[in-house]
């Protein structure tokens, strides 16, 4: 605000500003000066071109506006948010399909009660049927009696139990690696392992079909990501070559840029297997480290269930890190990473999900140990599982309207529509009808759930079919008939 330095003389009631104690002479002098300026202005006005006047006029008006427009007050502005603040939730959450959860009441083993119907379960990842195994349950029970339920602390702070150490040891021995580390949650395993190694500025090559946990881990690592087409080695090599070319241009940067290759053994999103031998060749050719996610293939592929490395006969030391969760074939909870100590040990201080979360409840660790025992004692189950897979795979081939996607030896494969019904929504609806139809007839299936907005490369809608090795053939053939519909 402008301060007016003059006092208005109230006595005379005149409009003349009367500066303090000044004499009238001064005022007369000021009037003269003012007169001179007014004359000068008139002179200018008549001499100046028209556009100049207009411009100045606008300028003066603008200045007046600026002077008189309100200054900006905080309190008044804060109501601004009211109009624009969005709801915490995105719109359209009400009638989302996935809100209608299936509700299972019996244990999700090979028989399951879904929404009140008893069904044969094709929907859980309990491939070896260990979830319902009496031996596993008894061992878990004994552990429960000894240790109670929770661990009440992260591994660093008295959350390390002797069973955790034993489990790590057993996994390392089973996989024939130097060291293993366990996490208390499957998803957190690879998602924590990736950012422990790959940092900002590092380079990562990933298959497009990589599962959500890998995607999240990559996002957390803030590395530069290059996607190659699903299982397409030529595309991968093209990317690697491009990078080699880049490196030659900037060798100093290349010397400190770590490179990683993230692949899955059996892809969760497509059911197909990765061409590991070629990948290993590329690894040494272009000097990238391979991280292999084996959540589906661990305890499934290979003669002893050691996963894709055994399936292809690849030396496990050629893979820098193998991660898998214990929530599928092992039918427990948690996950592990294994590999050389040089690599794995780093996670004990840098794996966020390892350091900053409570450790795995001891009874679940014991259950996993017992499950490993069973797998070691009876490698025959892997052969049986693979047979069952092939049997069902064959039976499901040639259903009109549905195609089977995935390897014939994979216990998790997908049914997709051969012809899309126009939009994703319609496809999802149709598949859901099929799922409901089967459920009413005693077969539990489920669609693979994806968060449409979050996936980088959204897989098309599909039904997952999971095979257990303990099914009886009678129920099998019955199921086939139904799915065939």
């Amino acid at each position, binding site marked *: 605000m402008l301060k007016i330095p003059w006092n208005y003389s109230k006595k005379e009631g005149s409009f003349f500003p009367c500066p303090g104690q000044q004499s009238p002479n001064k005022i007369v002098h000021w009037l003269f000066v003012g007169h001179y300026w007014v004359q000068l202005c008139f002179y200018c006005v008549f001499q100046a071109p028209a556009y100049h006047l207009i411009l100045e006029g606008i300028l003066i008006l603008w200045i007046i506006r600026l002077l008189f427009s309100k200054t900006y007050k905080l309190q008044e502005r804060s109501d601004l948010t009211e109009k624009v603040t969005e709801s915490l939730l995105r719109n359209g959450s009400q009638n989302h399909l996935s809100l209608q959860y299936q509700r299972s009441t019996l244990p999700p083993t090979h028989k399951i009660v879904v929404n009140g119907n008893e069904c044969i379960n094709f*929907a859980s990842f309990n491939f070896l049927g260990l979830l319902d195994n009496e031996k596993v349950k008894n061992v878990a*029970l004994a552990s429960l009696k000894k240790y*109670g339920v929770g661990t009440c602390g992260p*591994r*660093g702070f008295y959350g390390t139990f002797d069973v955790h*150490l034993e489990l790590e040891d057993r996994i390392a021995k089973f996989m024939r690696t130097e060291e293993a580390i366990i996490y208390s949650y499957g998803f*957190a395993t690879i998602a924590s392992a990736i950012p422990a190694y790959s940092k900002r500025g590092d380079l990562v090559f990933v298959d497009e079909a990589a599962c959500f946990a890998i995607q999240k881990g990559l996002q957390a690592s803030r590395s530069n990501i290059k996607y190659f087409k699903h299982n397409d080695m030529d595309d991968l090599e093209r990317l690697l070559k491009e990078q080699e070319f880049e490196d030659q241009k900037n060798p100093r940067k290349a010397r400190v840029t770590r490179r990683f290759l993230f692949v899955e053994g059996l892809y969760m999103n497509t059911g197909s297997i990765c061409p590991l031998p070629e990948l290993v060749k590329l690894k040494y050719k272009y000097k990238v480290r391979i991280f292999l996610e084996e959540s589906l293939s661990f305890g499934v592929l290979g003669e002893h269930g050691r996963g894709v490395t055994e399936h292809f006969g690849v030396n496990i030391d050629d893979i820098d890190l193998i991660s898998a969760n214990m929530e*599928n074939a092992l039918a427990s909870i948690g996950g592990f990473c294994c590999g050389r100590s040089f690599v794995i040990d780093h996670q004990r201080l*840098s794996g966020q999900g390892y350091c900053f979360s*409570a450790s795995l409840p001891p009874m679940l660790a014991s259950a996993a140990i017992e499950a490993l025992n069973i797998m070691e004692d009876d490698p025959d189950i892997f052969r049986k599982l693979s047979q069952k897979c092939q049997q069902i795979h064959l039976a499901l081939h040639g259903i009109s309207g549905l195609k089977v996607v995935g390897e014939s030896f994979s216990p998790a494969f997908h049914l997709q529509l051969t012809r899309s019904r126009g939009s994703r929504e319609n496809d999802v609806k149709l598949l859901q009808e099929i799922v409901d139809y089967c459920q009413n007839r005693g077969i539990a299936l489920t669609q693979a759930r994806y968060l449409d907005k979050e996936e980088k490369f959204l897989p098309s809608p599909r039904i997952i079919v999971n095979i257990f090795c303990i099914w009886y053939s009678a129920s099998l053939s019955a199921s086939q008939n139904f799915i065939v519909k």
Partner: protein
Amino acid sequence: MASRRAHSSGDRDKSSGLRNGYSRGPRLNGKPASDLYKKHFYESFEQPPLYVPVLTYMGYGIVTLFGYLRDFLRAWGFEKCHAAQERKEQKDFVPLYQDFENFYKRNLYMRVRDNWNRPICSVPGPTFDLVERVTDDYNWTFRYTGRIIKDVINMGSYNYLGFAENHSEFLKPVAEVMMEYGSGVCSTRQEMGNLDKHIEVEKLVTQFLGVEAAMTFGMGFATNCMNIPALMGKGCLILSDELNHTSLILGARLSGSTIRVFKHNNMQSLEKLLRDAVVNGQPRTHRPWKKILILVEGIYSMEGSIVCLPEIVLLKKKYKAYLYLDEAHSIGAVGPTGRGVVEYFGVDPADIDVMMGTFTKSFGAIGGYIAGKKELVDYLRGYSHSAAYATSMPPAIAEHIVRTLKCIMGLDGTTIGAERIRKLKENTRYFRQHLQQMGFIIYGNEDSPVVPLLLYMPGKVGAFARRMLKKNIGVVVVGFPATPIVESRARFCLSAAHTQEMLDRVLTVLNEMGNFLRVKYSRKPRNSCPELKYDENYFEFDI
């Protein structure tokens, strides 16, 4: 070493008079807002005499110098290097670790490594059994002797209400569910892993917290980092306390929103950020932020401080932001009936938009929950990353949570739950008061069962933990990077299961240890002699 405070901009502002032993007369906008607090709210962060940080820095300096020297010796082969080496075939790859990354681990952490990851072989109750391990090569490897150190007093586990126990009677329902359902689940919530047990837990949590709905997840860490991204996205702003847990930081980062950090529990700092956000909007475009979310914890696990919830609720309403409250350490542990900081302050649960908590601490299980309005939970059922992609909670664990919740709420027809909550409160006050009387600097709120005792110097950290173990007391010590570099500390977590004798023993030993290590730095006035008096009527409770 992963830093807990990955996004904190630096050390805390020590110059603000706020931190030095102040009794927090809560202030808002410079005006005292004491009417917000129904009861006395006292938090203390006393500063040590100046020579302490100076000596501490010197200590780190010496260790670092020796580290360089030894690295030099290792490089020239004078000293044997115990660390695992890269494979010969891969020597020409880009090195997996930068050298400085592991400097800290090789030269500082290795010297005191025996104080972490100590393996235990019993219930982590008020006392536990440790597996004895020794090292022949200065902590590079450990050897298990096969002996067991019996009955160590456990001052480290987050067993606030003492539910880490193995009474066969308590465990019976859990054991039955385990025999019926097996140990795992083998599916996600959205596919085939939605069991009736989950629905039962969710109903109880809803009832317990006094909210409309709740959803459970298989891991507390993942609850944060897989649900925040479902709520926030590009164009949103997250205001996060500088000492927030890694899982909150990770969740915020994964969401892709802009993150700004305010000083720990400092309402002026938060209000400044809020005002700035509302007035200026997004950088460059100046469009208003789509949503603003305040991320705070109930009890901060390294400081023992309790969030100034009433003020935050006021601010959140004033600036129309949302509030995400992580009650990992506070649920069950504070509040007259164990309902967390919300009850502690008498705040309406409906004022908290997202209430998150974990079952790993007070409940002695595993997993986490999110509770709030029905729309929120319904939305998360559809869009939470955890519901779609991660395995759901094992049924036996769910049964255990049901049992503990019923016990806390008194639905099992006993007063065991209420007694435990009272006992925890008693233990907390008792322990804190005596430590303070002895002249230790302890941080945090007088009602917080997490009690950090400041040790400052790195050398004292190792000595303290080892000597305490010799006296059969298991303590947790934490140093850089989980704390600011000069503020290494020991952290005690009290439990309702601790008996009077146990606490007295710990206190006696601590008193000796404090004299021996000279860590009684407090300059606060104290009563003449710290006698260990324990009297049921000694404390007043407003239950």
